[in-house]
Structures are given as C-alpha cells and as structure tokens.
C-alpha cells in the first residue's frame, strides 16, 4: 500500500512537472509584447467599473457551511458502510444499520431544518419587517 501511495505522489509530481515544462516551453517560444490595453481586465469592451473582486452573495458562505457539515458527516458514514457487508454476514446487521440510520437520520433532520428555514432556496425571501426581532 505504501508503494501505491508513493506512486500517487510521483504521479502528482509528474503532473506538476508537465504543466511547468509546457508553460516553460511556451514561454520560450511565444511572442511577448506586454503593455497597452492588453493588461486591462475584460468587461465587454467598456472600462471596468469598480473593483473586480466584488463582494459576492452572502448565501455562498451559508452554502459552504452546509456543505462542510454534510460532507464531514458523510465521510464518517463511509467506514461503517465499508464493514456493513461483513457485519451483515456475521449477523450484526441491526447494529450497523442502526448506526447508519442514526447518522443519515441526523443529516436528514438537518436538511429538513434548512429547508424549513428557507436556506436552500437561492433567493432567500427577506423576512417581513414584523418578523425581524428588534433589539430594544
């Protein structure tokens, strides 16, 4: 197994080297005439208004958080899934299933919660004025 892991590392190194070598080769033979309008960023032929690194939708962060929680939980289910077959054969199916069910159930509840909160829709409806808790 160590051999296989080492192999993957060599593989990735070769990939990096390939990209680097190709870019180097390209750099050696390509024409280079920098400057002028070429250096501008493209905004449909108009001069860009404001910065290019715009503030993007806040929903992306929420989405990333949801993803993180789900993905990590799913990663924890994988080991159970791997041994599920063996446990099934050795008659411990109920335990394994209960574990999987627990994990998936929690995740599913989370999904239902998010759905109810409206975090899953792209345009989150702005809460009506009276729904916003006010600080006094």
């Amino acid at each position: 197994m160590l051999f296989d892991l080492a192999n993957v590392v060599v593989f990735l190194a070769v990939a990096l080297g390939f990209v680097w070598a190709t870019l180097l080769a390209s750099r050696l033979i390509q024409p280079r005439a920098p400057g002028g309008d070429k250096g501008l960023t493209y905004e449909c032929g108009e001069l860009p208004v404001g910065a290019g690194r715009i503030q993007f939708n806040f929903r992306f962060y929420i989405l990333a958080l949801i993803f993180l929680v789900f993905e990590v939980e799913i990663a924890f289910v994988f080991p159970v899934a791997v041994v599920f077959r063996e446990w099934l054969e050795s008659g411990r199916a109920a335990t394994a299933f209960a574990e999987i069910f627990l994990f998936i159930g929690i995740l599913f509840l989370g999904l239902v919660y998010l759905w109810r909160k409206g975090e899953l829709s792209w345009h989150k409806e702005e809460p009506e004025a009276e729904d916003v808790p006010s600080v006094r």
Partner: protein
Amino acid sequence: MSPPSLDRFRSRLAGTIREEPNPFGDAVFRAEPSDLRDVLRSLRDEHGFDLLLDVTAVDHLELPDSKPRFDVVYILRPSVGSERVRVQCRPPDEDLSLETVSDLWKAANWAEREVYDQYGVRFRNHPNLKRILNHKDFVGHPLRKDYDIKKQQWLSEPDDLMDEMRKLRGGAEGEESESVLLNIGPSHPAMHGALRALVDLEGETVRHTVPEIGYLHRGFEKSAEKGTYTHVIPFTDRLNYCSSVMNNVGYCRTIEKMLGIEPTPRAQTIRVVLLELGRIMDHLVSVAANLVDVGALTNYWYLFNERERIYDVIEALCGARLTHCYVRIGGLAHDLHAGFEEGVEGILRELPKALADVERLVARNRIFLDRVVGVGAITAEEAISHGFTGPCLRACGVPNDLRKDEPYYGYDGYDWNVIVGTRGDTYDRIWVRMEEMRESMRIVAQAMKKMPGGPVDVDDKRVSLPPKTEVYGNIEALMNHFMIIMEGIKPPAGECYGSIEAANGELGFFVVSDGTGKPYKVKVRPPCFYVFSAFPRLTEGGMIQDLIATLGSLNIIAGELDR
C-alpha cells in the same frame, strides 16, 4: 372607451385645434405648445389613440415657412386599428422647448431624447434629457440643416452611465456596498449587436439596468438627405439587416404613397412573397439566437440552415444575400428569375421540418420552460405605453398587426391568422414568432399560387425608367431616362408617414419632400428602438440569466436602433 375615431375628435376640438390640409391624406393637427399635452392626452384617453408611434422634428430652415424653425411631430395610432393621426407643434424659436409627454407614454422618454439629440429641441420636465444616439461629448445637433454632413468629430471618452445609475440607486445608501456594477455589452456574446446594459447586481439578481445604444454611427437619416429618393434604398437595407427587403418595401411604399401610385398586381404579390420570406428569416434569427442564449445551441443550426436556404433563393433573385436592394419606387429592380418558384417550394417543404425539429427539442423540455416561462413578462398596457408593436406586443395578447389593421398589397385576400400570446413573457415571444413563421409560409404559398402576370413596374413616367430600346431610339424616352437618373423621382412637396408590418413591428418612414428630387428629411421609426426602451422594466428583479434570455426574445437589431 369608444372605438378610435378621428371624426369625433375633429368635432370635439373644432375650436381649439386646427387641422392642416395634407396632400397625402394623413390626418394632421396643429397644436399650440400650450395645448399640446391636453390634445395628446385627449387623443389617448378619449379617442383611443393609445400607441405613440414616434416623435420627431422637422427643421424648416430651408423650407419657405422657416419661422418658427422647428416643427415637432407626434405620430399616434390606436393599438388595434388602422387610423393614424399626427399632431404637430412648433416650439418658439426663443427657448426651443416643449412640455414632455414622457409621463403619458413611456415611449416618449427615448423618443424625446432622440429629438433633443438630433435637433436640439428641449423637453421640459423630461426625467432624463440626455443624448441617446450620439456620443455624450458630441457638439451640435446632426439633423439640423445647418450641420455639415462632412463635419467630423473625434470622440473617444466612453460614457460610464453613472449619472443614470446613481439616480436609480437613489436613497439606498446602506446597500451600496453590497451591489456590484457590471457592464454587459457592447462586446458580449449575448448582445446581438452593439448594445450595452450597465447592471447593478446583488448576487446575481439584477436590481437596476441602464441600457445604452448608439454604437453604430452610420447617420442613415442624414445621408438620406444627400442623395435622390432612389439613393436611399440601399441605405434602408442596412437598417434591420436580418430582413432587409422589408425595409426596402417600407420605404418605397411611403414614397409611392406620396406619388399616389400603386404598384402593379404582380409587383405587389412578389413584394408579399419577399416580405413574408423576410419575416421568416428575421424570426429564424431571433428564435435561434434566443435558444442559444438559454444554452440550447443545437437548434441554432437547425434554424440557420433554413435561413441559408432562403438566402440562396434571394441571392439567385438579386445577387445579394444580406442586403438585397431589390425593391424600387414604383416596382421592383427586375422580374422574378426562372427557378424562383422551385426555390420557394424548397423553402416551404424544408422549413416546417426544421421548425418541427426545434419544437421536438425544446417545446416540452422542462429546463427550457423553466428558463423562459414567466421571464421578462410585461402587461399589454405597459407594452403599449412603451410603444411595443409587432410580435412583442402580440405576445401580450394585443392583436396588433398592420397587415390586418390596414391591409396593404392585398393581405386581406390571403387566409392567415394573427398570432397572439397571453402572458407577454419570453416564452410567448418565442412561440409567437414560431407560429408566425407558419402563418407566413401559408401566405407565401397562397401568393405563389395566385401570382398574377404582367409588368412589375408601374407605367408612370415620373418613376419608371423607359425600356432601353426606347431610350436608344426615341428622344423623349432618352430625356425621360436622363431626368429620372439625374434629378431623381420628385414626389410633391409635403410630409408623409407610411409604414408596414416589419418582422419586429411597425416600421415607419416619415418623409418630408420639398418638391425636389432629394428627400428633405427621412425619419425611420424602428420597432426595436421602443422595444429596447422597456429593457430595464423587463429585466429588473430577475437574474442575469433572465436578462440574457429576455434580450434574445426582444430581437433587438442594432442596425435599426442606431441611425
């Protein structure tokens, strides 16, 4: 509201407004600047003239009655019905301004900006009176008679449109940081033509849109004043280049109206065939590009192959694929060639298959329907206020079609239907066009079947060149030929508005003649201009992807938008 009636209007306002005699039979009323708004409002609210077709001005500098110098013209028609009325008003030379009507018709907003841009007539209380077609730093007003056509101006500073955007963003100070300004166009794959929209984005939701046009400075209207009436025909090809024969016909029909001549039956029928082929081509381009905009790329080729087939037929007819220049005042450049009929048969045979292919690909496709149904919807009232005509208005459920309202060239003799939508959204606009192509095919088939014989040019010495054999053998014919070529066709002096139902809506030409062989003024009323003015209304609140899909369905052709 009672049906549109000029007679009622005439009797009601007999005291306050003067009707001007017009040699071409148009109803023209002259209003005083102080009464103008009341007259127009009365026409709209009480007499059913709810569609403001165009606002333009005539510079009387070189005409006998040059005081006051400018004459502003408002052209109105009912959204369904054939009557047309022009209200003209001369602003005093001292301050050269009129009260705006942009609160009565949204269409007046851009129309008045154009008049201001081209003639320098100001409109009081206009929400945003700035140049629209010319560059912001342009000096002078190009359509004034004392503006030299050869005068050139070097203008390179782009307009950031922030003056308009700031107004739109308005009081929302706190949210300023969250929104992003993005230029879509002029050089963007989905902007079919040189258009630009500066959008204010929040996430991917469009909050405000500021459209900008005027990238093509061809000066169609100014150039038209420099040649003879015949010289204008090739310029009209370049207006809506997707269906250039329609522009030819629209222009020639207006001049024919001035001359009081009617083309021969054969010329009329050939024109009908070409008009409908032009409509098909235009709709093919529109639908194909629209489908590309929502990501359904394959349909593009299915439709464009058929467009190529039509081009092949027209190329055989007149030698040009895009800019046909086949129609002449009083007739056509020449008669049909042998084999035209087979070509048209081929089109009628193959086009339904392509349409069926596209229908099978998208008509019941969930993704497509999700992308276009309910997107960019507009109500009929708003559409009329914005000056929509053609497929975009019909998609809102208004059966506005000049071919039915004011049947010309025997359109009433054919069996066909006006297609209307219900919701006025992108889906309806696409599908109205799809079905209209089928109706156009029916008209073409009927027209080809009944194609009458006879000459294609009218027998009128004022417009038709005598045959070459006569010219070489007969001094009278030679002189006639010489006069038409050298001095041009001379319509009687006066002002005339003529229009046809082009692919995108009512294509009107307002022509002023001073009795010489050169037009004193040619103003085109491009349907796209008014449709595009509603672009912010259609896109605000949607997402970028909706904006792109909506734009495709409006079929904005920059060639006729910019003049």
